[in-house]
């Protein structure tokens, strides 16, 4: 009779990579296990010693070190180590020490080799560095259709075009004949703006200069009482926002969301190849967050906007359940946040009258990065035209800012505790003052001061004269990349928050109100990751705000090796997804969502991926410290 080592087998079966092995294999593994006990503080493996067994932590905790003595990983129940040594000439590469009283299972090297050979999942796990395990954890999610389908697929016909000299009546006839609801307006005489970059064949097509929709006839022709011979050039929407045929439907949706437009020309490079509208996309996702945004624009009061709060959360939960990517969810939630801000500004202008001078309402932090989730503060500011005179105009903008800020708070975007809101006179200033702010931050960097102003380095216009905010983005990108001291100070701040490497232990866990062991995934994960990506992106002179787009920008330079960037991308995606799922679950259970994840409640595989992600963050922080060394050690006086 074969002996069953139930206790050992059952334990192995709960942890990767053993959890994927068939039961009879596990029985065999259990029978070959050897067991040893180590007191806290004793060495288990020393560098370069011979190794012939895989080590499995049955209980306790083990620290794994790099050769230089830096902590590489902290393992707890179910963790394995020694596999790198087994795979590389049977010499220990990472020394190990018990940090608690530890019971170890040894699995013979011969058996280890067999398992690697016969079980792909096992081999994948032990052969992978953190990266591909993380990748697997991220890729496992079924990517939403929206993410995969190209916009090109939505195009049913070539766009109907008219020259810009066409009269509105002729244009209306063309639309009726062709039964389309929109037109592309072209300028047959216009030269291609950048002829040497456009293939000759494409140059024969006229350049698109605008679009026209059914609605434009109503609002801009009939309502205004314009004559029928008005040229379309006068009423078209000039320089329309476009998408590329190779973009995904998701990107098209985002673009509509962001800009609150319902028609989007699709171009092949610059040649219009089609026109899609909101309903084309909604066919693909009937409960799209676009619906929600369009209903935001129908609301007539703060109270009505507030009534959408359950819908916002439902949209979030649905996207989380559909396993949309973190980028997708962050963008959609930010789009919704922008929608609220824009509608509130419209309502404010209705109430207080048109603005006395042009302005831009600026989003900062997560909304500017398109990384908002459901638990979020409002961080905003007003950039005013330089003709702004506080005595004459500030009363208006104070009222406007207060209306919007209170409205946002009512809709679930809590007031910023740091006072970074347009209601704060310091953050309600003309463009020239903003230029000075940014110049001062960059040219006279003080880490402590930058700690508070860091949020301004993610900025985007939400409403109004976006050119003013774009100028600030430009200034930041331009000056930051040339200023090592500034980048050094930023990187120092980016190292303030470290990932919880040994997160299973109490000393790295925060205690929440009910004294559970929790990790604040924002503070210890996504935030430091975002900080670090920002430093590199600014060093590259990038104007991108979104962390994933910043990674793209960094990869276009040679600042970081491509695989390191990929690792960051997966770590950010995974940490964000865990946060998203955690919050979605809370909403479904009618608990107030937060960022405090209890690792004890997650599956061993998820815990493993979490550790891998934290490991990536830790390594990236080391790289940052290495990149800006002299500045990172400067101490404030």
């Amino acid at each position, binding site marked *: 009779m074969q002996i069953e080592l139930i206790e050992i087998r059952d334990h192995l079966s709960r942890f990767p990579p053993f959890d994927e092995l068939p039961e009879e294999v596990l029985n065999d593994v259990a029978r070959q296990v050897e067991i*040893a006990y180590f007191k806290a503080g004793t060495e288990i493996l020393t560098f370069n010693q011979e190794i012939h067994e895989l080590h499995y932590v049955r209980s*306790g905790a083990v620290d794994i070190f790099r050769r230089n003595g830096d902590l590489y990983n902290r393992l707890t129940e179910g963790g394995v180590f020694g596999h790198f040594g087994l795979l590389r000439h049977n010499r220990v590469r990472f020394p190990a020490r018990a940090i608690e009283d530890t019971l170890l299972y040894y699995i013979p090297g011969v058996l280890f080799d067999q398992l690697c050979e016969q079980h792909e999942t096992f081999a994948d796990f032990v052969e992978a560095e953190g990266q591909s395990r993380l990748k697997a954890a991220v890729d496992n999610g079924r990517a939403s259709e929206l993410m995969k389908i190209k916009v090109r697929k939505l195009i049913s016909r070539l766009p109907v075009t008219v020259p810009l000299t066409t009269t509105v009546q002729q244009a209306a006839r063309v639309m009726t004949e062709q039964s389309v609801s929109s037109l592309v307006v072209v300028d047959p005489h216009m030269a291609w703006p950048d002829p040497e970059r456009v293939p000759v064949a494409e140059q024969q097509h006229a350049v698109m200069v605008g679009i026209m929709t059914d609605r434009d006839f109503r609002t801009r022709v009939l309502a205004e009482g314009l004559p029928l011979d008005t040229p379309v050039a006068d009423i078209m929407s000039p320089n329309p926002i476009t998408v590329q045929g190779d973009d995904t439907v998701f990107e098209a949706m985002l673009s509509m969301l962001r800009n609150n437009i319902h028609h989007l020309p699709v171009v092949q490079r610059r040649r219009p190849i089609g026109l899609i509208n909101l309903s084309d996309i909604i066919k693909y996702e009937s409960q799209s967050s676009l619906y929600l945004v369009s209903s935001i624009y129908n609301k007539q009061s703060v109270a009505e906007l507030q009534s959408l709060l359950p819908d916002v959360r439902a949209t979030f939960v649905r996207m989380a359940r559909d396993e949309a990517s973190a980028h997708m969810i962050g963008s959609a939630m930010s789009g919704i946040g922008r929608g609220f801000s824009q509608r509130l500004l419209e309502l404010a202008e209705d109430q207080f009258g048109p603005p006395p001078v042009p302005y831009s309402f600026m989003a900062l932090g997560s909304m500017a990065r398109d990384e908002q989730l459901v638990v979020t503060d409002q961080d905003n500011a007003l950039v005013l035209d330089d003709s702004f005179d506080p005595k004459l105009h500030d009363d208006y903008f104070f009222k406007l800012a207060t209306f919007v800020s209170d409205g946002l708070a009512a809709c679930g975007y809590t007031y910023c505790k740091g006072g970074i809101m347009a209601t704060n006179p310091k953050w309600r200033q003309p463009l020239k003052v903003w230029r000075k702010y940014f110049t001062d931050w960059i040219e006279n960097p003080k880490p402590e001061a930058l700690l508070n102003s860091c949020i301004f380095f993610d900025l985007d216009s939400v409403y109004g004269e976006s050119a003013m905010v774009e100028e600030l983005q430009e200034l930041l990108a331009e000056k930051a990349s040339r200023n090592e001291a500034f980048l050094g100070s930023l990187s120092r701040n980016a190292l303030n928050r470290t990932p919880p490497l040994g997160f299973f232990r109490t000393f790295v866990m925060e205690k929440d109100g009910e004294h559970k062991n929790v990790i604040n995934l924002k503070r210890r994960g996504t935030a430091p990751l975002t900080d670090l990506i920002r430093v590199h992106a600014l060093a590259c002179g990038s104007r991108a705000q979104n962390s994933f787009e910043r990674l793209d920008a960094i990869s276009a330079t040679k600042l970081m090796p491509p695989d390191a960037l990929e690792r960051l991308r997966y770590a950010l995606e995974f940490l964000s997804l865990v946060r998203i799922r955690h919050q979605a679950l809370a909403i479904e259970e009618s608990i107030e969502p937060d960022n405090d994840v209890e690792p004890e409640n997650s599956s061993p595989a998820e815990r493993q991926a979490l550790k891998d992600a934290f490991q990536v963050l830790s390594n990236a922080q080391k790289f940052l410290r290495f990149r800006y060394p002299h500045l990172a050690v400067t101490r404030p006086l």
Partner: protein
Amino acid sequence: MIRFNPGAPQPASAPPDWPRQLAQLAGQAQHPALQAFYQAGCPAADCPLEDAPLIALDIETTGLNSRRDAIVSLGLAPFRLNRIRCSDALYQVVKPTSELSEESITFHRITHSDINQAPRVASVIETVLEALAGKLVVVHYRAIERGFLDQACRQHLGEGLQFPVIDTMELEARLHRGDGEPSWFQRLFGKRHQSIRLADSRLRYNLPLYQAHHALTDAIATAELLQAQALTHYSPQVSVSRLWS
């Protein structure tokens, strides 16, 4: 200079001279299985624990009285202080001589069908003796294992059995019960009776909780406990005679 070194816990009385005793018994024993067992002897008194061949033994029974109750299963795990090798472990369910109560069936997670297919103690006792021969037996609460093995040998081989054991429960008792019951003074300062049951003892060394009352699991649990006790309170070089009884 005054040195105060309480050192490692000491046994209450002088330990027996087991190699001599076993040699004597080898001469007296009639049954060849017992002769062979005693002739294999045991590690010398000054043998360092880390060099001694050890075997953890756990016997599950229908009750505590070795005369009235019967053996249900045996778990044996030969080991060295630095390693417990599961591939050498033995586990045997036996058909009890007395009726197995419903409670003890649930208690030991053994079913009637397990038992119906199981051999009688008579046919496994010699295998068990072979496994134990030459090794130092490690148990948690020696009265059970010694009592029931002695009784089984009396019934089936016609003579009793004596052998040295390291009793991990006794080692715990030395630590926590050395001065008997806590005094009123100690109780005043919160000293409580420490449980020296297997699971509770293991907790003091941060060893994991196992499902109790499976003979092999308990044997391995006992072996792990000795590893932990030795590394915590003694040294791997401690002479076996300081631990055995």
